[in-house]
Every structure is written in C-alpha cells, then in structure tokens.
C-alpha cells in the first residue's frame, strides 16, 4: 500500500515543485534549478525503489475516489511499460534540468521556465501512470498545454509565439479526438479502467465502432508523435529553448503518441485496418522525415526532422502487427531518447557557445571544443546506426522484422526492406552532415562569438547520455535487458517472443543491409556536396509542398476569412435589425406551435365584462398607443401617457385581488417617472419637421413593416393571454403555499411569506441584483460626460439669468427664491408622515399588503419629494442620505438573517416566528422573516435613492461650474467654464464618505 502512495508522489511532486518554482523571484535561477534537480532525483529514487517489484511482474495500483457518482476513480497504475517511461521521463528530466541551469541566461525569468518544465514532467508522468482512460486524456491535454507554454517561453519572438500556437492547435486538436476515442473505447469495454479495457481486446476489435475508435485514437497519437501529415508542428516547435527541445520534442512528449500506441497495442493491433493506417503513416513519415532532414540548414531543424523520421520508424514497427516488431519499437524508444537528447544538448552547446545554429556558418569546431565534438560524434553515430552503439541494435531488429514480418498484405512488405535501407541511408547522410559541417573543415569565419568548451556541468548530461549509448550498444543484455523485458512483457503478456539482445548475430542479412545503408549514406552525402554547398533552403523535389504553409492558410481561412464571410452574411451591428430578427423568430415559433398543436378552446367560460374595467382599459389602451405616438417629438407627453398606462395596470392588479402588486406598481410608477424626467434633461432637442417634405418611400415601408410586426406581436400576445386565462391554472404550488403560509411561515399575507420565507433565497438573489444594478448606474454616472449640446444649462435657466443680469436691482436667484413655496412646506410636513407610513407598511408586511420592497420605495419617494421641492442644496444641508451604506447594511442584514439559521443548526434562511404581547401595540408578530424584510427594505431604499440622487446631481454640477459672482460670465451663458462640468464629482460620492444618518 505504501508503494502505491509512492506513485502519487511520483505524479504529485513535480506539480508541487512547479508551484514552488513559480512562486520564486524571477532572478532565482540557482534555487529553481536546485529545486528541479531535487524533484528529479526524488522521482528517480522512487522509480528505483519500486523497480524490483515491477520486474517481478507486479502491477502497482493506487485508487482514489474521483467522481464516484459517475463510477470514475483516480487510478495510478505502474507496470513494465510505465516504469520504462517514468524512468526515461525522470532521468532525462533530471539531466535536462542540470543542462538548463547552465543553458538559460540569467536575464530570462528562469524560475518560470523550471516551473513549466516540472509541471510538464508531472503531466507526462501522469499520462504514463494513468490507469483510467479519462484521466489519461486529462494528463494528455496537460502535456499539450505545458508544451505550448514552454515553446512560447521566449514569447517576445514571433517564431516562439507562432510555433507554440501551431503546436497547441495540432496536438490539442488531436487530444480532443483522443478524448472522444477514449469515451467510445470506454463505452465498448464497459469501463474506463485500463485493466478492464486491456482485457477486452477481442470484444473491441470485433465491435462495429472499432474503426471510428481507432481513427479517433490514432488522430490523437499521430498528431502528438508528429507523424505525417501532422508532422509540421515539430520543426516549428524548435523555437523553444534547446533544453525543451531535448526533453519534450525528442525524448518524452512526442513519445506520448507512440506510448499510447504501445499501451493500447494489445487491444487495437492485429487487424488489417491497424496495419494499413499505422504502418503507412509510419513508413511515409520515416522516409519523408529522413529525406527532409538531409537538407536542413538549422542544426535543430535537422534534428527535428530526424526525430520525425525515427518516430515514424517506431510507429511503423508498432503497425506491423508483430510481437517481435513491438519489442523492437520499445527498444528503439529508449535508444532514440538517449542519442537524440544528447544530440539536442550538443546542438544547444554549439548554439550557446558560437551564437548560431546555421550549418552554413559553422565549421571546424573540433579544434575549439574537442570534448563536445567527440560526444556529438558518438551520439550521431548511434543515430546513424553504427555498430557497437545502441542505435545499431534496434535498427538491426527493425531490418530483421522488415525481412521476415508475416502480414496480410505482402504488397507493402515487399518494399519494406528497401524502404528500411533507404531511410537508414538517409539517416547516415544527415548524421554525417551534422558532424562534418559543424566540427570539421576550415576555421569558422563569421561566428557571433568565439567558440570554446562549455562549463563542465553543462557537458555532464551529454556525457552521461553518450555513455549510456555506448554501454547499451556494447552490453545490451546486461544494461537494459531486464527493463526491456519487463516493458515488453507488460504489453505482450504471454505472447512475448524470444528475442536475442546480442551485438553479434553472425553474418546475417540484416547485418549486410546495415552495411549497405552505411556505405550508401556516405555515398549519398558525397554526391550531394555540390547541391548542399549552394545552401538553398528546403529539400529538392518537395520544396513547394509545405504542410506548414497549408496549415497556415487553413487557419487564416477558418479564423479570418470564413469568420468574416459568415459575419457579413448573418451578422449585423444594428440593434433594430437584431430586434426585428428576434421578434420574427419569436413570432414564427409561436405561430408554428399554434399550427402544430392547434389553438383549442379553453375549458373556462370567460366572465362577463365589467363596464368600469372596460372603460379603464379603453383609457389604458389609449395611453399606450399615445405614448407610442408621442415618444419621438413630445417626450414629456409620452412620459405622462406611460404613467397613465402604468396606473391602469395598477388598477387591474387591485381589481383582481393583487393588492401587494398594485401597491408596488404604484410606487415604482412614481419613482420611474421621476427618474425619466431627470433623464430628459440630457436628451437632444427634437423638433417636428416642417411638414413640407413627406417621408421617403423607404422610410414609410420600414415603418409599415414595423407596424405589422408590432400588430402581429400584440395580437399574438392577446390571443395567448386569452388562451391562458380561459384554462384552469395549474395549482400545485399555489395550494402548497396557501396551506403552509400561516402554519409554517407564520404570516397571513401569502405573497410576502413566499418572498421572505419560502423563496427567501430567490429574494436574496434578487435584491443582490438590484444592488449590483444600482452600483453600476452609480459608477457610470460618476464618469458621466454629457453630449456637447446638453452641457449648457437649460434654456429656461439661461433666460432667467439674462433677466436677472439685465436688472441690477435683482440679486441672482431672487426670482425663484420662493418658487413652489407652499408645496415645499407641505412636503416637509409630510416627510415624517410618509416615513411612518413606510414603517407601518414594513411591519405589517407579513400579514397584510406591504413589506420591505414597498416600504423601501415609499421612503425613497419621501426623500425625492424633498429634493424636488426643497432643492438639492437645501436638502443636503439638512439631511445626509448615505445610499451606499443603506445598501450594504441591507444586504448584510438579509444575509445575516439567513446565516443566523445556522446558529440553530438549521439550513440557510430557515425562518422562525412567534407572536409577542407588547403593551399598547397589542399582539405583534415577531418572525425572523421580518428581519430579512428589513434588510430588503434597506437595500431597496438605498438602491432607489442612489440612482435617483446620482442622476439628479448631474443637473446640479453644471450650475456649480458657473462662477456665481462674475456678472459678465452670467451674461454669456455658454462660457468656457460651463463647458467643463465633468470635473465636479457627484455630491453623493462625497456624502457617502461623511458621518451622520439618513
């Protein structure tokens, strides 16, 4: 069990390290490097400690509940294949971290680099240890994500950004296919657990969904492993720092694809479809990659295409449906990781010490960095498949397979030995070119820096890897034999074939093929000398066929041209058109419903028409139509008519037993009207046209169409309302609320009990919305800039000032000093009365019409009346309302009441009630719902007053900007000072900061 938890540490430690590294200061290069090294060493130690158990054939397993309701567990599972990969990930990870410590410049934010690198290490470990398909997909996407971040590490360069974007588009796109494939695979197998899936191979292969599953999974694997035709992202990813290329883009990330192919080999392989798709993709990739690699002028580009080619080789081996080929594939995965990582590091050293990676500029470095040159030569020889090095062994296994593989269609197999030799010869050619051009020849002439040996610690990882290449090459059975054996057995199980890991098999055909390939490679290199001397970019014959360019074109088309085209066809920025479309669709949907289901008569007989209500609605309809008629040229008239329609609505509510609604509607009507009146000040003047010119035909047509839409909507809505009203309403909830309102809620006003008790949580949400809306309006008004033609004080005030200025005997403002004196005295006297009424409404809300909403609106009307008749200055000198405090207090109070229920071990917002005997007042209901309602009251009051006062202040600040003493300025109303009103802050904001209560 404790060993199982080591698996969790294996996945968790790198992520933990990533978080810590991410928190380090940007200059802490050494600390981050040491942290990364410690994590890698810990991982290696864990792998070593569990190795004996795994080598005995044990499968370590850790299960943690993840989403038990969906039957998903977080499963970590370590078998032979996983231990091989985790070993590679942590060993090469450790070496790369050591290398990166010296490679990365101190000027870069290195801790971030190590953070990403460690997180990638964790993700990759997660992929190989996942015992659950969904979880595997998750970690798979994480590797894509961190690869993206690492490629884009130097995000100030275009190449890094483009490369990163291309990599994530291709690999994450493949990852989505993989996820879909995994879901299907789990569906077929009946479980997402890897053990179950691996055990149900026959069922999966014979399932009708086998081909779709295979295609989806292969899309994921082949994009990740940069297989043709998805190979183009890998060379672009070389914009990453070289340690990243060495780690991700040769040793680990790109191996995730082949890992998956190997992992699911027992389940998916063995069919002709598998053979054709995987085999062909591998073969083409191997040949094309090797061919293109020869002609690369960038060291890392050469290595990238060679990586593509070698991954093609591994894919081809896995596609051959042969057990022995699979062993060879696993063996080559290890060998390739060793020599390619060291080559990338060598290329990085060259880049680091000379300042360039261009083969055409490099030359004769053997004299400047002899150690590095020797190391690179050995690694390149391993890549070329020279005997006594590890690359030779797996390549010879491949040749043997190419000759002997028994497969359904010999057509492909006939060319296989030839293709194998050609690819191998190409491999020799580019290895030779790498070594010859970089290390031999005359002294370099135009290098940015004078080359010299790198620091010893930077060379150490290369030395270790090259030593591994040699050791495996000479003593394969003693070094990697056990590991390869346990990995192969974990994939193939009982079917693991007998294979021999020795250097010398005698004079065999594969050996002859190796020799031919070696000689052929040298011959090709010599014969290409003249062509390569010219230094042209790209390979001959297929230079114009660049997958990258096709990809770019596709992306531009999809993300730009197609998007623009569709926007042009279907989009509009005009609100009216959008609304018209919306309405049209709504009408269509409503009409369709009627056509499909039939209107059908209602089951209730409509009640007789009361002439009074009929008359009321005649007035209401006239008001509505009048408001529509007047809204353009006579805003004030439209506003009054709107109020009329509102009042009719209000009467209707009273008529049909909804007193709470009528009360609320009436108060809201008042507040809305005041608000819109305040807004009128900032709208432009609009005069009725002279009438000599009739409107254009197009305008008339447009209006007729809108009229048609409006009439259709009105008729439809009337029909719908009538149809609804003549049917028995559903009463399930109504019955429930009516029965329980008193017995459980303790209130006789059922509407209020619903609001503050049964659905208190909804009300809490709603008052929060009101608060947010009010704050938004307030924030907008704080930065309000009126339109230029509305900046000046209104016409009437200008006239007044001109009159006062013209008559020296009249002091400024004296004309309106007693303006509306009687109403203002009356409203002052009414103020306490209105407040008492509000209190009454609030307290009786639970039992009779009233409540927090209504009370809040009432008090805000009391306040706004004072503003209207007393004037802003008069009111604010005597009464400071702090709307923001009221709102905050209200929200806290309401939420606190809800939280109070927790104190009594009840769910949030559970209410409690009782009736108290208080002298004089009599029996008073005391429910916790009343406290909640007080919160509602405070918030509604605060929000309403906030919006009203904030808007009202916009009119005042224009006055303040006018100098009060300068008579000359008054004579010229449009003085520059008046044009700068936006400087003055609304007094509400200032008031909110001061003491005192409302």
């Amino acid at each position, binding site marked *: 069990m404790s060993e199982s938890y080591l698996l969790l540490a294996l996945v968790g430690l790198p992520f933990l390290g990533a978080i810590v590294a991410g928190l380090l200061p940007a200059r802490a290069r050494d600390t981050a490097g040491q942290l990364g090294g410690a994590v890698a060493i810990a991982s290696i130690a864990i792998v070593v400690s569990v190795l004996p158990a795994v080598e005995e054939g044990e499968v370590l397993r850790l299960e943690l509940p993840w989403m038990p309701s969906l039957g998903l567990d977080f499963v970590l599972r370590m078998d032979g294949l996983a231990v091989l990969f985790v070993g590679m990930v942590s060993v090469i990870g450790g070496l790369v971290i050591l290398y990166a410590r010296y490679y990365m410049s101190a000027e870069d934010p290195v801790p971030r680099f190590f953070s990403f690198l460690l997180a990638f290490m964790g993700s990759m470990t997660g992929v190989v240890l996942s015992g659950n398909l969904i979880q595997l997909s998750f970690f798979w996407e994480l590797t894509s994500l961190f690869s993206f971040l690492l490629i884009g590490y130097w995000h100030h360069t275009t190449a890094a950004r483009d490369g990163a974007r291309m990599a994530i588009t291709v690999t994450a796109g493949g990852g989505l296919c993989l996820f879909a494939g995994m879901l299907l695979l789990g569906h077929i197998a009946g479980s997402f657990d890897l053990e179950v899936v691996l055990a149900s191979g026959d069922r999966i292969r014979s399932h009708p969904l086998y081909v779709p599953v295979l295609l989806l999974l292969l899309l994921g694997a082949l994009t990740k492993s940069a297989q043709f035709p998805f190979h183009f992202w890998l060379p672009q990813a070389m914009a990453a720092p070289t340690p990243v290329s060495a780690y991700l883009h040769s040793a680990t990330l790109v191996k995730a694809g082949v890992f998956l192919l190997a992992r699911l080999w027992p389940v998916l392989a063995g069919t002709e479809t598998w053979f054709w798709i995987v085999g062909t993709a591998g073969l083409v990739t191997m040949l094309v990659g090797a061919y293109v690699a020869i002609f690369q002028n960038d060291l890392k580009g050469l290595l990238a295409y060679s990586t593509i080619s070698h991954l093609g080789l591994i894919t081809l081996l896995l596609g051959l449906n042969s057990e022995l080929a699979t062993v060879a594939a696993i063996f080559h995965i290890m060998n390739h990781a060793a020599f390619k990582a060291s080559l990338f590091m060598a290329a990085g050293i060259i880049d680091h010490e000379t300042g360039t990676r261009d083969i055409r500029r490099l030359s004769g470095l053997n004299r400047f960095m002899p150690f590095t040159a020797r190391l690179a030569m050995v690694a390149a020889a391993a890549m070329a498949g020279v005997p006594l090095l590890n690359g030779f062994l797996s390549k010879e296994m491949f040749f043997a397979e190419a000759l002997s593989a028994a497969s359904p269609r010999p057509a492909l197999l006939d060319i296989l030995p030839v293709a194998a030799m050609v690819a191998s010869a190409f491999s020799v050619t580019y290895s030779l070119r790498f070594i010859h051009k970089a290390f031999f020849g005359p002294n370099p002439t135009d290098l940015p820096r004078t080359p010299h040996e790198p620091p010893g610690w930077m060379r150490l990882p290369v030395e270790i890897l090259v030593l591994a290449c040699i050791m495996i090459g000479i003593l394969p059975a003693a070094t990697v034999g056990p590991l390869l054996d346990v990995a192969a057995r974990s994939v193939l199980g009982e079917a693991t074939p007998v294979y021999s890991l020795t250097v010398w098999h005698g004079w065999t055909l594969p050996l002859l093929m190796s020799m031919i390939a070696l000689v052929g490679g040298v011959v090709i290199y010599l014969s290409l000398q003249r062509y390569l001397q010219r230094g042209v970019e790209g390979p001959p014959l297929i230079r114009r066929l660049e997958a990258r360019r096709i990809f770019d074109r596709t992306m531009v088309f999809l993300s730009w041209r197609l998007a623009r085209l569709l926007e042009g066809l279907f989009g509009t920025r005009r609100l009216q058109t959008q609304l018209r479309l919306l309405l049209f669709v709504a009408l269509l949907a409503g009409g369709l419903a009627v056509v499909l289901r039939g209107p059908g008569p209602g089951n209730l007989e409509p009640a007789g028409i009361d002439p009074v209500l009929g008359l009321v609605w005649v007035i209401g309809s006239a008001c509505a139509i009048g408001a529509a008629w007047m809204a353009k040229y006579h805003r004030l008239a439209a506003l009054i008519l709107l109020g009329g329609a509102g009042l009719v609505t209000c009467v209707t509510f009273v008529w049909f037993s909804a007193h709470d609604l009528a009360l609320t509607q009436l108060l809201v009507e008042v507040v809305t009207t005041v608000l819109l009146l305040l807004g009128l000040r900032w709208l432009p003047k609009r005069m009725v046209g002279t009438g000599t010119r009739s409107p254009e035909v197009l305008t008339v047509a447009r209006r007729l169409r809108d009229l048609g839409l409006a009439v259709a909507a009105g008729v439809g809505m009337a029909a719908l309302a009538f149809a609804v009203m003549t049917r028995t309403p559903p009463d399930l909830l109504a*019955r429930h609320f009516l029965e329980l309102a008193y017995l459980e809620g303790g209130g006789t006003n059922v509407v209020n009990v619903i609001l503050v008790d049964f659905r208190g949580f909804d009300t809490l949400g709603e008052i929060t919305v009101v608060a947010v809306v009010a704050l938004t309006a307030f924030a907008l008004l704080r930065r309000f800039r009126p339109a230029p033609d509305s900046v000046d004080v209104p016409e009437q005030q200008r006239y007044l000032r001109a009159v006062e200025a013209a008559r020296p005997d009249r002091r400024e403002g004296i004309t309106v000093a007693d303006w509306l004196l009687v109403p203002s005295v009356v409203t002052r006297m009414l103020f306490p009365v209105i407040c008492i009424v509000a209190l009454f409404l609030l307290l009786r809300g639970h039992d009779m019409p009233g409540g927090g909403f209504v009370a809040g609106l009432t008090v805000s009307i009391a306040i706004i009346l004072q503003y209207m008749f007393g004037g802003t200055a008069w009111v604010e000198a005597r009464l400071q309302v702090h709307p923001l405090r009221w709102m905050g207090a209200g929200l806290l109070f309401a939420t606190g009441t809800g939280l109070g229920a927790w104190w009594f071990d009840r769910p949030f917002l559970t209410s409690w009630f009782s009736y108290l005997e208080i002298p004089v007042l009599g029996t008073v209901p005391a429910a916790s719902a009343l406290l909640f309602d007080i919160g509602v009251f405070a918030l509604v009051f605060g929000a309403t007053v906030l919006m009203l006062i904030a808007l009202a202040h916009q009119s005042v600040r224009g006055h303040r900007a006018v100098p009060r003493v300068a008579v000359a300025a008054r004579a010229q109303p449009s003085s520059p000072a008046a044009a700068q009103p936006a400087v003055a802050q609304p007094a509400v904001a200032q008031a909110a900061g001061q003491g005192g209560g409302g």
Partner: protein
Amino acid sequence: MELVVSIGIGVLTGAGIWLLLRPRTFQVIIGLSLLSYAVNLFIFSTGGLRSGAAPVLEPGTAGSLEQHADPLPQALVLTAIVIGFATTALLLVVLLAARGLTGSDHVDGKEADR
C-alpha cells in the same frame, strides 16, 4: 373580463414592440416600460383572474384555492416590478452615457446611413 385584460395586454405589447423597433433611445426605453407592463400582467394572469380573493389568510388557518387567488404569480411579478425599475434606470443611465460618448441618441450610436 378575460377578454378586456387580454386585449389590454395585446395593446401594451403592440405599442411596446413598435417603440422597441424605433431608432431613438428614449423611444426604446418607453417601449420597454410598456412591454414590461404587458409581461407582468401576463405572468400575473396565469394564476387566473379573480376578484375579492386576495391571498391574505385568516390568522391560524390554512388557506385554499377556493377562497384565495394564486399567490405565486403575484410573488413573481412583485420582484419583477422592482427589478424592472432597476434595469430601466440602468438602461437610462447607459443610454445617457452613450449619448455623451457618441453625441447621438440613435440606438446604434450613430445615425443610420441613408
């Protein structure tokens, strides 16, 4: 009675929709207000139209649909009215700010191309 209220809802809707489709911001705000009356009345009417049956109970009793109107649509509409006021206010402020920024009270921020 149902007929009267239905026609009333229809007229309010029609006038509201007509104004919604107009180009001036003030027209749109009046239109939205009219439309919200119509919608509130419609939601309210789904509980049935009954006179003299306010959902206010006798203390100590359980209410029933025989004596009282459906309280649920009323509760829904009550909060809708308050929220409707708040959003109308916000819309007004946004429109005023937009006019300040664009100098036009056209809904698109600029006069339509002729």
